[in-house]
């Protein structure tokens, strides 16, 4: 069965510092991986995805994520955090040949001024 884990409930980082939000996955076959962000009282917004090709994927708002097949990870990164990046971040995985997108439990990112 496919699954995705976000080991940190919360990540705190100072504005201007780099940030990493961790995600590991488990699927049969090639994974399709996604990151979404949720601001308070809003729906999820798509940030980026990995389907195939380059392991480093660039997305919206300066975010990027690195696919690491050997470690089954897809960590979200940003070189310089902004206070406005504070939100709830979800990693998601879809296994090849399924329609179902499975979300992780979410990581709350808090960026302090």
């Amino acid at each position, binding site marked *: 069965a496919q699954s995705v884990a976000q080991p940190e409930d919360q990540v705190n980082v100072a504005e201007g510092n780099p940030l990493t939000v961790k995600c590991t996955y488990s699927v049969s076959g090639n994974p*399709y991986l*996604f990151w*979404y962000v*949720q601001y308070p*009282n*809003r*729906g*999820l*917004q*798509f940030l980026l*995805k990995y*389907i195939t090709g380059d392991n480093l994927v660039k997305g919206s708002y300066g975010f990027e994520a690195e696919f690491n097949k050997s470690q089954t990870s897809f960590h979200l990164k940003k070189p310089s955090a902004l206070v406005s990046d504070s939100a*709830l971040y*979800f990693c998601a995985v*879809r296994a090849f040949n399924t*329609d*179902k*997108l*499975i*979300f992780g*439990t*979410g990581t709350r990112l808090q960026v302090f001024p």
Partner: protein
Amino acid sequence: DTAVSQTPKYLVTQMGNDKSIKCEQNLGHDTMYWYKQDSKKFLKIMFSYNNKELIINETVPNRFSPKSPDKAHLNLHINSLELGDSAVYFCASSQADSRPNSPLHFGNGTRLTVT
């Protein structure tokens, strides 16, 4: 010009009542979804419809019944509401047929509170 819109935004009701949540998307997408987000923010898929046909039906009580009158609408009807149904329900859509890995577009959610 909201892409995925849900109504109502808030729904407060008593146990045992029947209620509906409506969802409409104006993106021309062929697939629509209902997700439930609990108090711990855990997000779980409930249903998925592709071109008005049910394709995903997770282990959800049969008190929950989705209805898709056309490709742009997916409504969720809940019978005999229970306290445990309190959650935020999100509608989403995607263009799954022609772009299998196209991202989901979410509505802003309906916060259901059952008292």
